[in-house]
């Protein structure tokens, strides 16, 4: 599933911390139409480069970007020490 929210929490000793909830669904509303609009361009490029063997990787890489975005949900990085905290969670 596409991640809809990104939570970033950074705390450093002696500095002001950051605690953000970013609504990723708003970002996808912009990014996904752009990626879709790029599809014809990608197809033409892949078709031109197909004889050289670079067409297929370009097409596959384009499709894999969607797959990567779709599987980002659930990624969590949490690093805590005595004075510092870095917490990133894609929900």
């Amino acid at each position, binding site marked *: 599933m596409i991640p809809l929210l990104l939570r970033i929490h950074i705390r450093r000793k002696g500095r002001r911390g950051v605690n953000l909830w970013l609504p990723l669904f708003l970002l996808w509303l912009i990014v996904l139409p752009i990626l879709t609009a790029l599809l014809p361009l990608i197809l033409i490029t892949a078709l031109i480069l197909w004889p050289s063997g670079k067409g297929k990787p370009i097409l596959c890489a384009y499709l894999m*970007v969607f797959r990567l975005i779709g*599987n*980002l949900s659930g990624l969590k990085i*949490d*690093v805590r020490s*005595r004075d510092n905290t870095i917490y990133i969670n894609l929900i």
Partner: protein
Amino acid sequence: MNEERKTILEMLAEGKINTEEAERLLSALSKETEKGSDVTEIKSGYKYLRVVVEPGPESENPERVNIRVPLKLIRAGLKLASFIPKDAQAKVNEALHEKGIDTDFSKIKPEDLEDLLAQLNDLTVDVEGKEKIRVFCE
């Protein structure tokens, strides 16, 4: 008893194969079944790869790391990595080599990952009592 096992035993009873051949076929069949069940378990059960680093009793630095990576993301990443041009892959491998990591990630295929995860049930590494690293799937 499954069908393949039954067929092998019937062939042995009819004298179509000798005992050695039957044994070889049965062991090959059991290995295949074992491998298949591992992969099915991974596919159905686990969703995330977890890496947890906790300070040990002798640790001076109480740093804790807790990373959860979706397995689907790792699989997608590996597939995407296979589309990286070879000259760029060489540069990546060179950079990894400089960091002391002698692994060619372009050679790791999704099937290899399934095998690796099947073996990686719950790995715990104790680094000289200073840190305890746990790598497991959940």
